[in-house]
């Protein structure tokens, strides 16, 4: 799975600088807004009066925020829940069920990684539905109340604008949470049931391996029956030991049943399909072919620069530095798992992988050479597990103790090198990690849904904000725009900073219209000049939007769940904080908008 190294920063390391810049931004916005408010008031009532008006607004706001009554908020939230149910939340639920029913047509259990496909699907389907629902509910509710004037009877009670806004947010979040819980439970069952299978294996399927002497008890091998478009290779030794080869990321337990002379075999349910690996990530640096530190490895011509490559048979290496490694956490040594890409410049031996090596080094002794611990054969696109024991023999014959000799203050370096000359290994930071005890998959699944919950929170606060000053349909469109902008944040940023082909939106429009390709320069002329000027404006706007809007796609944890990685508490906390950090100012803005709106108009 693809992980941006920025996303795996420990929570506390992230928090302080992030909090600092957040406070700075919020305060900056406050100052600008206050100055603007004062200016508007000054134009109408004169500067001195404006000062008292501004301070009055702030005093009021302080009172409205501090004296919020939980009971009133809950009453308003209950109303929002009631209203949502009236608005046929059930329909969304029905759609979800229908989608699941028909999903079987499009989900291929015989795919390379069916678990990933299934999980990706349920998480995506749920998030689309729930986010759309949140969008409709949150952006239409207040305008409807204003239009029907039901708001009259509410605001003439001792209800503060802050309570109305917060009540709506709490209410819609409650509805969404209920929906998410139910959908999550159903999805879980759907995935479990969709992937559950076992195979048949009869005695006839097994043949003695080649080269075994007739008459003697021989090692048997064969293949199981075809279920979900795959079979497992099975080996049974004369002593009754069995091994089942991994297919599509899972295995089955094989038991031998003996009934007199008759031997039958029974395979258990699929294991290892739905997992939550707990990776401990290190920090990746590269060494070039002379062994010097390098920012990056070699590019072997891939368009995608996520992974960097190192040349085999040289001193080039990928070096991961791990921190906080303790014997308590890894009493049996380091379980390394890697997803290494291989790039061959010549065929080499077709039937064998490219050999590579794993070495350890003590980071506090920069003069020491890394000590080779493991030689392995490359495997691509499936996790390759290697184990670094606590005790091992060094090349010079001495016995080494991993934690005594190589771990310094919890820090250790792992060196990945390619042994075969002129062949290449490619890796990114998240491609090699230490594998701690698996976390509970169900819990991880729930955390994935929590990611949707966070996205929903963002949508709801945005929807409520827009609905405080826009009419229903317009508020809905604005929220939808924010949602799309949030999902395409990255693209907007690249567009605004000129990192895309074909120029800005207006230039692209001309190219599209005149069917020019993306890279040839535009013909100079009035048309081009105008388009470029408009693009300049559009780019400022896009840059602003991409800065303001949260990057929605980052809040999706679907990839983690689908690829079988545990969502760390660091990630969870970081993103929860990010969501709240966004929600809070939006809530304040919504409060101000509603407070200063004439309800009776």
């Amino acid at each position, binding site marked *: 799975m693809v992980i941006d190294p920025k996303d795996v920063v420990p929570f506390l390391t992230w928090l302080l600088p992030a909090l600092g810049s957040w406070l700075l931004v919020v305060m900056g916005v406050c100052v600008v807004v206050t100055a603007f408010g004062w200016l508007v008031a000054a134009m109408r009532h004169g500067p001195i009066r404006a000062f008292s008006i501004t301070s009055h607004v702030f005093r009021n706001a302080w009172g*409205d925020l501090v004296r919020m*009554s939980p*009971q*009133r908020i*809950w*009453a*308003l939230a*209950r*109303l929002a829940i*009631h*209203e949502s149910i*009236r608005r046929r939340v059930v329909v969304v639920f029905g759609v979800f069920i229908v989608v699941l029913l028909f999903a079987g047509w499009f989900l291929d259990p015989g795919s390379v990684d069916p678990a990933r496909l299934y999980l990706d699907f349920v998480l995506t389907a749920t998030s689309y539905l729930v986010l759309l629902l949140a969008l409709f509910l949150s952006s239409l509710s207040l305008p409807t109340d204003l239009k*029907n*004037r*039901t*708001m*009259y*009877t*509410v*605001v*003439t*009670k*001792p*209800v*503060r604008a802050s309570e109305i806004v917060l009540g709506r947010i709490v209410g819609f979040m409650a509805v969404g949470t209920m929906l998410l819980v139910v959908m999550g439970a159903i999805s879980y069952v759907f995935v479990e049931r969709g992937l559950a299978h076992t195979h048949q294996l009869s005695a006839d399927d097994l043949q003695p391996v080649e080269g075994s002497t007739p008459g003697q008890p021989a090692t048997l091998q064969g293949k199981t029956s075809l279920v979900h478009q795959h079979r497992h290779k099975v080996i049974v030794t004369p002593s009754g030991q069995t091994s089942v080869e991994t297919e599509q990321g899972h295995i089955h337990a094989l038991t031998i049943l003996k009934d007199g002379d008759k031997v039958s075999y029974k395979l258990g349910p699929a294991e290892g399909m739905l997992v939550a690996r707990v990776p401990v990530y290190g920090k990746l640096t590269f060494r070039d072919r002379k062994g010097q530190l390098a920012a990056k490895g070699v590019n072997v011509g891939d368009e995608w620069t996520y992974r960097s490559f190192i040349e085999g048979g040289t001193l080039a290496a990928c070096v991961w530095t791990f921190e906080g490694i303790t014997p308590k956490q890894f009493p049996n040594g380091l379980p390394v798992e890697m997803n290494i890409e291989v790039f061959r410049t010549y065929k080499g031996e077709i039937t064998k992988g490219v050999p590579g090596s794993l070495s350890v080094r003590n980071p506090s002794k920069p003069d020491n050479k890394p000590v080779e611990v493991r030689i392995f054969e490359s495997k691509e696109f499936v996790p390759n597990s290697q184990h670094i024991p606590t005790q091992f023999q060094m090349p010079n014959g001495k016995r080494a103790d991993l934690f005594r000799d190589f771990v310094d203050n919890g820090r250790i370096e792992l060196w990945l090198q390619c042994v075969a000359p002129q062949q290449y290994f490619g890796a990114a930071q998240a491609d090699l990690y230490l594998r701690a005890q698996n976390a509970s998959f169900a819990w991880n699944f729930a955390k994935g849904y929590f990611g949707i919950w966070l996205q929903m929170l963002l949508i709801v606060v945005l929807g409520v904000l827009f609905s405080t000053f826009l009419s229903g349909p317009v508020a809905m469109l604005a929220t939808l725009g924010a949602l799309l902008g949030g999902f395409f944040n990255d693209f907007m940023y690249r567009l605004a900073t000129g990192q895309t082909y074909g120029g800005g939106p207006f230039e692209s429009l001309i190219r599209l219209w005149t069917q020019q390709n993306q890279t040839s320069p535009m013909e100079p002329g009035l048309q081009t000049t105008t388009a470029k000027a408009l693009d300049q404006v559009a780019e400022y706007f896009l840059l602003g939007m991409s800065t303001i809007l949260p990057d929605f796609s980052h809040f999706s944890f679907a990839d983690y769940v689908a690829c079988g990685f545990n969502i760390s508490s660091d990630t969870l906390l970081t993103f929860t904080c990010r969501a709240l950090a966004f929600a809070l100012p939006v809530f304040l803005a919504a409060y101000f908008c509603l407070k200063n709106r*004439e*309800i*009776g*108009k």
Partner: protein
Amino acid sequence: MQSETIVETRSLSKVYRDFWGRQKVRALKALDLEVRRGEIFGLLGPNGSGKTTTIKLILGLLFPTSGQALVFGRDATDVTKNQRIGYLPEESYLYRFLNAEETLDFYGRLFDIPRAVRRQRVADLIEMVGLDWAKRRQLKEYSKGMTRRIGLAQALINDPDLVVLDEPTTGLDPIGTREMKDLILKLRDEGKTVLMCSHLLADVQDVCDRIAILYQGELKEMGRVDSLLQIRDVTEIRVAGLNAMAQQEVREVIERNNGHVLQMGNPTTTLEDLFLKIIHESQEHPGRRVRGK
């Protein structure tokens, strides 16, 4: 005197503007009003005269363009004043998906009324407005009269000191109208202040202690109903059981004293006369206050 004043407006003005900030309507022009504790104050005027605007300004639903509206001595935009106000809007704007009990319970919660008190009061009010038989039905199934009653009940959920009623009798049948009027009087008797507006003259005349007449956003007349309707140089005599001879005698007595018999018979609703006269005069001399306090 100060504590006696519940609602006060000081040269309250409201100008409606369109999206571009251009002036559209001057809905209210420098209104000065005072509503005192324990009275029933009626705002009178034809449609579009600024009654509802005034009420919305007093409730803080609108912000004044200039001037001030004070309720219980506090600014109208201060939400804490709402603690002691009950408001029945022109039409009962209620959540149609709630039933009567839920509606009252919801509004009760907005006042932070403790659970036990709330329950009791909800039951009492439903009983009072006579909807006990339909309290579990959603409001969308209610008739107009029933909606009006539950609207009134919600306005009284907090046992308010000031009750603001916007056109309280519209849409009610004669019996309903009578009941509403009795209720308003009963509220006054309980010591509450009532501010109501209406274009139905009979209602206002019946129940109001004082009235203000608005026309095109301007205050045309204000005062006690009885004194407003008193015409000093006109004496009205109503006698029952007088025979023709006696009537002749009375006429003679009047004529002897240089009086002049105008009419003898059943009196008309004179408020209507007053009202129409004011409107007539306003149309002839726009902007002039008809008669001093």
